[in-house]
């Protein structure tokens, strides 16, 4: 058979890629071709629908191609392809179970493409894809759909928050959870919400509401997912934010790269993009930080929620949740109770039966208990619990770890509600500070130092310590009554005051005598100032405050004279008592002056510095009684209850790991330097000069050695001098130049 000659044009026409390219270039002139392909698509669709389940590979492939082509050019012919989107939706939502996987992916991809081309809107896309995600049985399909849905939500929220879309989707998710509480489908709602929460796309109360409903579901998976969200979602969000802010582009490097490599448009664009990104990042930095409330704070009616959680999942005997799940839920409930100071009285009596050393993961339960206590919990409810912990855990017979855990737990509970302790029990427990085990001893000392601060009169006289005894005798220290609140202050204000003090000292030292003139100039004002301060501190009348405010607002314009003014202030007072009074006064800084933005920034800085110091351990002892992380919102974990890890006996593996830390891997018996050298060689690095010298062929060194022997004294001197000179200059190549 003679092969038919094929014209060049015809050949080119015969593939979809070029046709697609041509159509996109010039939609008007290729309309006829498109119409033909559209008819082809219709025919293929018909063929496909004759038997969607048993379609042959060929027909699937040609249908696949047609969908691809039409989807890519759909935006050029909106009128002709009106029905296309509905067709795709129908195909994928009716046949997704039986469809050929490639075709299925293509249909979904085409729908997303149409969305990108803005042929369809996000709502239409998501309402199509989401039901499939929920009902599909194919894992890969679900993964893909989840990704696509997430991406679309991110994209449509990228420029500005798309409120209508978010509302729609949130309503869909909410309905999914509340429609059937026992179905595992709600897990998708949770995944989606959590992901969007993490990326700070959804930050309002509605997603929290969705999660709240999910917590009250009947399916264990759903419950766990939702509870984990409340316990860890915010931390996840912060971590992601830190990560994204970490990656920074080095513009200089990019610019340098361009000078080296071949210049191309692509590279130029990459550079532009990098510049854009850097600019955006800078803009973001200068923007005010968006207010992100944690999920626990955004909860509507936490009291009801916590009660419901407790009664539904924990209290009853009917529920069949596993212990791990129960622990998670317990954590959430107690966290809510502690954070919002809720009152759930049956919660405390529920704990009783779990407080034995044999109970599985009892430390976590103890941590939850401590977490669930706040100063408004009736001490009567807590007393039996503490008694039980003391009886079960803290005795001579029990193991030292157990006793330490018990004491720690008691301390944590009492640090939140000190009234729950009885005098006899406390005196008993305090005696464990003589224990031989370090963990127990430290735990008991912790309890002791706690009660020295909050309830010294309950301790025996000799245990009270100096400060507490003095405080008691002077009447300055009193145990707080039930429901009594501490007077609030600004954290770190004393630090700021101290810093200002130091600053003033320094200024004065710098200026010395030269400051006389300026002091004279400021004198009348200073006199007025100090008078006013004293009046203000004595009776804190309204008028005093008003005048102070005016005065400080004058200062705000120029921060420098303010400090100079302080100098004058300081010189007046010289006795130590006056200085102490001054400090006292400065702690009331906030009530007497307006803090300028610069002050606030400094305050922030000082706070950070002090928290770093705390973490470094310089003030560890002092801080032991408070929550170690410092923030009230952070929950208490089992680790806080268990004795610190160093106190525990190490296992052999741990010891080995500790010893090995920081040392190179050692497969064979070699010296450390040998191992390092071989590593260096393997990495393709060069040897040092010393090494080169050492390895040099002996014969090559002979000549020099011989000539050295023949050198005259003058020559030798020259050489030695040269050596010294070189070493002072920093070698032949001159260090640093």
């Amino acid at each position, binding site marked *: 058979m003679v092969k038919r000659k094929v014209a060049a044009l015809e050949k080119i026409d015969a593939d*979809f890629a070029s046709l697609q390219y041509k159509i996109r270039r010039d939609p008007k002139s290729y309309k006829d071709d498109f119409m033909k392909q559209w*008819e082809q698509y219709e025919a293929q669709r018909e063929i496909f629908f004759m038997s969607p389940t048993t379609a042959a590979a060929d027909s699937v492939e*040609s249908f696949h191609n047609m969908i691809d082509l039409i989807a890519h050019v759909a935006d050029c012919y909106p009128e002709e392809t009106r029905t296309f989107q509905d067709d795709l939706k129908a195909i994928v939502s009716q046949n997704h179970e039986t469809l050929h996987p490639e075709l299925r992916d293509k249909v979904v991809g085409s729908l997303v493409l149409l969305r990108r081309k803005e042929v369809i809107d996000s709502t239409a896309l998501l309402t199509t894809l989401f039901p499939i995600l929920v009902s599909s049985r194919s894992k890969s399909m679900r993964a893909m759909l989840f990704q696509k849905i997430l991406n679309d939500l991110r994209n449509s929220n990228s420029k500005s928050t798309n409120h209508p879309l978010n509302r729609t989707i949130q309503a869909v998710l909410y309905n999914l959870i509340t429609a059937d509480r026992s179905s595992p489908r709600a897990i998708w709602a949770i995944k989606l919400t959590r992901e969007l929460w993490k990326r700070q796309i959804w930050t309002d109360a509605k997603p929290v509401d969705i999660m709240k409903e999910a917590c009250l579901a009947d399916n264990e998976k759903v419950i766990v997912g939702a509870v984990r969200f409340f316990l860890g979602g915010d931390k996840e969000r912060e971590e992601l934010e830190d990560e994204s802010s970490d990656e920074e582009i080095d513009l200089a490097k990019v610019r340098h790269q361009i000078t080296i490599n071949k210049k191309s448009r692509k590279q130029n664009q990459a550079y532009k993009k990098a510049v854009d990104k850097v600019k955006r990042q800078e803009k973001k930095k200068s923007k005010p930080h968006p207010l992100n409330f944690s999920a626990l704070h955004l909860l509507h009616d936490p009291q009801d929620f916590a009660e419901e959680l407790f009664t539904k999942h924990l209290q009853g005997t009917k529920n069949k949740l596993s212990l791990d799940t129960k622990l998670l839920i317990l954590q959430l409930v107690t966290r809510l109770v502690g954070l919002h100071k809720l009152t759930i009285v049956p919660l405390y009596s529920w704990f009783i039966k779990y407080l034995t050393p044999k109970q599985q993961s009892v430390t976590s339960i103890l941590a939850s208990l401590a977490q669930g206590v706040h100063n408004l919990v009736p001490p009567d409810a807590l007393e039996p619990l503490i008694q039980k912990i003391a009886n079960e855990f803290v005795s001579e017979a029990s193991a030292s770890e157990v006793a330490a855990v018990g004491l720690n737990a008691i301390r944590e509970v009492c640090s939140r509600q000190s009234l729950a302790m009885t005098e006899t029990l406390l005196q008993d427990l305090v005696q464990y500070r003589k224990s031989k085990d370090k963990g127990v001893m430290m735990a008991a000392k912790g309890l002791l130092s706690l009660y020295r601060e909050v309830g010294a009169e309950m301790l025996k006289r000799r245990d009270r310590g100096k400060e507490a005894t003095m405080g008691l005798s002077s009447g300055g220290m009193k145990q707080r009554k039930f429901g009594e609140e501490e007077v609030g202050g600004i954290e770190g204000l004393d630090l700021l005051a101290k810093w200002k003090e130091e600053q003033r000292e320094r200024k004065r030292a710098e200026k010395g005598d030269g400051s006389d003139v300026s002091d004279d100039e400021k004198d009348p004002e200073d006199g007025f100032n100090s008078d006013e301060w004293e009046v203000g501190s004595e009776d804190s009348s309204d008028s005093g405050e008003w005048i102070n405010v005016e005065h400080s607002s004058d200062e705000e314009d120029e921060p420098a004279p303010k400090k100079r003014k302080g100098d004058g202030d300081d010189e007046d007072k010289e006795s130590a008592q006056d200085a102490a009074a001054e400090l006292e006064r400065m702690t009331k800084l906030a009530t007497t002056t307006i803090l300028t933005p610069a002050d606030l920034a400094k305050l922030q800085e000082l706070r950070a510095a002090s928290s770093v110091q705390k973490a470094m351990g310089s003030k560890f002892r002092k801080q032991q009684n408070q929550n170690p992380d410092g923030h009230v919102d952070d929950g208490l974990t089992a680790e806080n209850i268990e004795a610190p890890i160093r106190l525990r006996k190490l296992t052999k593996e741990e010891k080995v790991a500790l010893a090995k830390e920081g040392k190179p891997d050692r497969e064979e018996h070699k010296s450390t330097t040998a191992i390092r050298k071989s590593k260096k060689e393997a990495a393709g690095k060069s040897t040092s000069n010393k090494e080169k010298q050492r390895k040099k062929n002996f014969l090559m060194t002979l000549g020099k050695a011989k000539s050295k022997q023949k050198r005259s004294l003058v020559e030798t001197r020259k050489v030695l001098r040269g050596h010294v000179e070189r070493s002072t200059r920093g070698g032949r190549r001159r260090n640093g130049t």
Partner: protein
Amino acid sequence: MGSSAKKKKEKKKDFQKPKYKVGKTAPKASNFTDTSFKSRAIVMNQQSLSTAAPDVVQQFKHNLSLASSSKNDKQRRDALAYLTSQLSSQPPVNPVGTNNILSKVLPLISDRSTPARSQLLKLLQALPKDEAKHSTREAITFIRAGMTHLSADISNDSLGFLEWLLDVADDDLVGIPGGWFKTLTTFCVIMGWSPSSSAAGWTSAPRTGPQAKGAQVLARQMSLLSRFIQIGMKPVIPVIPSRQDYWDNLYRIPRDPHAFEYLNLFGGTRDEANEMHTTREARQEVLSRKFLDPISKGIERAKKEGGAVGRAATELDQVLTDRMRDYTASELITDQYLLDLW
């Protein structure tokens, strides 16, 4: 440079003579290749070990599956040829039934190899007509897909298949859902007379489309279209109902291929394109409303070209005027009209 002792030794090795020893085989050369082999059995590929040859039915089925699913062009063509020979023998051998054969081979209308397609046409022609007409609906779908195929060869060959289908099922073809409307649309599209293009504004230059490069093809398309229209709008010959018909209508199951199609029991709601146009008037109405304008424009253009195309256009024009003579536009109130009123 003076070479080292090692190098000298290596050099020497090349010129050393092998030492022969009495009673021992000579040492092998360094480039000796061992060609001996051991085998316990000789395996012969591609040999059937069955004693009995496969029977005709088996062979037929095998060939049918080869024709529909083989990746090899030649194999497909040969299988189709085998099937054709079996079907055209006297008496015809067809163990699986016409319908099954059709459902297997119809996708081959868009086959990429030309010989296979021409063989397929022969096969289809060998099938009994009254049985083949039961698969009209599938056939026309595949033919439409073939006609609009991107490859010019396939779309040209599809005309042959359409010819066959017109032979087989004339009335059925135009009466089934979508048979009239969609086929006409396809015709218009492949000839470049798009029915839905807006007439307003500038007219684009007359394009015959990349497919109708040869005037021959266009002429063939037009003559086929005229035949299609002829069949679609055949004058109705009134049949005098006999007594038997009356009773048949009441008590017998109808023997038409798509007897209850109009009830649309299983499909979704039909749009205009998928509507059944069972009567001549309905078809006339559709033609005049949707297609008359582009077709007559196309005819005008084609007439000017002259030659075979011009002749075909004249013929088509004649058919069109002949068949549309008794049609008056305002006669029918259509659904569309009612919808427009709404």
